[in-house]
């Protein structure tokens, strides 16, 4: 699938290049948050790959999780006169002034992965983000389809309490299973998005649900918690992926390893490729002058054991997750 996408993208790039000679050779400044997680590292390396594919000169500034560094970097990009600025904003507020400066310099700004709170939406061209509610929904619908009417008790490992992906992935999953009255979430606890908490909480679930015999499926808000929970299930003497179905969100390499060993059933991808669609939107904007929609939603692709998890694992491993 990825290679398919690549072929499509490269051919799209080739077409665009044929049409306008000036499309390639753009200079884009990218203010990245920092290296907070493996996903973030993968996003940076995929952005570099996507830029290289299109012949875009991408300058990446690492903000080390600080907004003031991001604002400095953006001012630097404006001074250099780049053709566009990408921002992965570390916080939602406080961007109006610096974005107004970019607008004055007629440099389009595209937000990646996260959006901002602003009174004036004209300050940025578009935002490329994933829909976290939709991710949960895809997971829920997969489960509804897989159990096909059989009674199914689900335990849920939530992300950090109060974080927006945790709230949205929970909501989306509930929407996904809403039409299947045979599926019920019996237990739901936070695993803080980490492996060790995922394992600890799953141990509790297994004890509380009659040694795990009462559990039909596990839904984890991220793959890391699922990886931890899979170990807990194994230590309780059950077979993850068979006795207890495992579905999670993110699509990090390690879950594909588990999937290739039959210990996980499905994962919904939070693609690290936010820059690709952003480059395409930027190119279209530069060529035709027509503004893209304010929100570009990335694909939340579902991977199952049928998608050659071993191959995906090899592909993803090198991305810095």
């Amino acid at each position, binding site marked *: 699938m990825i290679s398919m996408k690549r072929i499509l993208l490269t051919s799209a790039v080739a077409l665009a290049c044929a049409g306008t000679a000036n499309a390639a050779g753009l200079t884009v400044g990218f203010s990245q948050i920092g*290296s*907070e*997680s*493996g996903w973030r*590292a993968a996003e940076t390396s995929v952005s570099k790959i996507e830029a290289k594919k299109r012949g875009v000169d991408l300058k990446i500034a690492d903000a080390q999780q600080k907004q003031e560094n991001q604002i400095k970097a953006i001012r630097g990009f404006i001074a250099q006169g780049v053709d566009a600025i990408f921002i992965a904003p570390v916080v939602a507020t406080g961007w109006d002034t610096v974005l107004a400066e970019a607008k004055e310099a007629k440099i389009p700004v595209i937000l990646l992965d996260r959006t901002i709170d602003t009174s004036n939406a004209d300050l940025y061209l578009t935002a490329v983000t994933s829909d976290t509610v939709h991710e949960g929904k895809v997971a829920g619908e997969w489960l509804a389809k897989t159990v096909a009417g059989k009674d199914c008790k689900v335990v849920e490992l*939530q992300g950090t*309490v*109060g974080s927006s992906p945790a709230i949205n992935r929970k909501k989306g999953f509930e929407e996904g299973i809403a039409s299947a009255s045979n599926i019920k979430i019996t*237990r*739901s*606890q*936070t695993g*803080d*998005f*980490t*492996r*060790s908490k995922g*394992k*600890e*909480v799953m*141990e*509790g*679930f297994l*004890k*509380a649900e*009659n040694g795990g015999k009462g559990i039909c499926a596990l839904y984890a808000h991220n793959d*890391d918690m699922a*990886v*931890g929970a899979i*170990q807990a299930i194994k*230590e*309780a*003497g059950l077979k993850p992926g068979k006795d207890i179905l495992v579905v999670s969100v993110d699509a990090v390499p*390690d879950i594909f390893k588990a999937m290739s060993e039959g210990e996980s059933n499905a994962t919904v991808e939070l693609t690290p490729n936010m820059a690709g669609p952003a480059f395409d939107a930027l190119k279209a904007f530069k060529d035709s002058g027509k503004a893209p929609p304010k929100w570009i939603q990335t694909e939340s692709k579902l991977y199952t054991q049928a998608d050659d998890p071993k191959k995906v694992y090899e592909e993803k491993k090198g991305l*810095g*997750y």
Partner: protein
Amino acid sequence: MKRLNTASLTKALPQLLSLLIILFLNYLAFPGFFEIRLQDGRLFGSLIDVLNRGAPVIILAIGMTAVIASRGVDLSVGAVMAVSGALAATMTVSGYPLPIVILTALGAGLVCGLWNGLLVAYFDLQPIVATLILMVAGRGVAQLITEGSIVTFNEPGLIYFGTGSFAGIPMPILIAALLLVAAIAVVRRTALGLLIESIGVNRSASSYAGLNSKMLLLVIYGFCGFCAALAGIIIAADIRGADANNAGLWLELDAILAVVIGGTSLFGGRFSILMSALGAIIIQAMNTGILLSGFPPEYNLILKALVIIVILLAQSFTSLGGWAFLKAEFRSKGTNGQ
């Protein structure tokens, strides 16, 4: 074990009572709480979970007790755990043999601890500031070692430290128990415990009395770093991976809390390693209970805070002689009524 007389039992009463009450509440929330069975040759049950999950904090609390008794505090233990776990994982992945991996990881923790001790003892930095440096920097070092990703490994020898078992007892429990016995023996069968207490009560007076307090502080912090490294190895082995961002995150606070629940004063002086371990078990019994109870996760922290407030209040009430006061009050009321 002559020390375990009635006086020390009365002093331990609030903690023992809190543990019993928490265990009983857990039983009410989940009737199978005390069930223990053998699963794949390993003890399996909620009570085992409490000890197994509590083991890293017990180990941290052992080192932390010594530091706090010397009127210090070590905020860096969580970060040191991340460093040792990261080292163990990356070295295993690079193919180093197990003994070298373990020794290096433990050695790194020892070095981190000695660094803290150096800052506190020889440069006279306040412990909270001195160890704050490593708390922040240590996690950065761990992230450098793992290059920001979760390093997973499949080496059975290292995994054994997290999920293996000996005679049915999970390794983390065994390691924590051995360390506990060894530490208590060393501080109570020698003068070491007394020396630590004397530094905690008055460092300059101890020095004037001829005690090499600088060297002793160095050793104490080094030991605390060693304990943190041990806990770090267990946690990494448990999930078969080193997660530099999250391993040991906020565990320094749990360790300090365990020591405080155990009744050791943050102002140094008299301490009890055994009671700190009991404090760690109380914290974990509470965590496990919350997981089993099925409350929505939004209540986790509120429940924890409430329980801890009650435990600490009961403790301060006891140490202020509250029960005796109440008894006397009750008696005098009784006579007034006649």
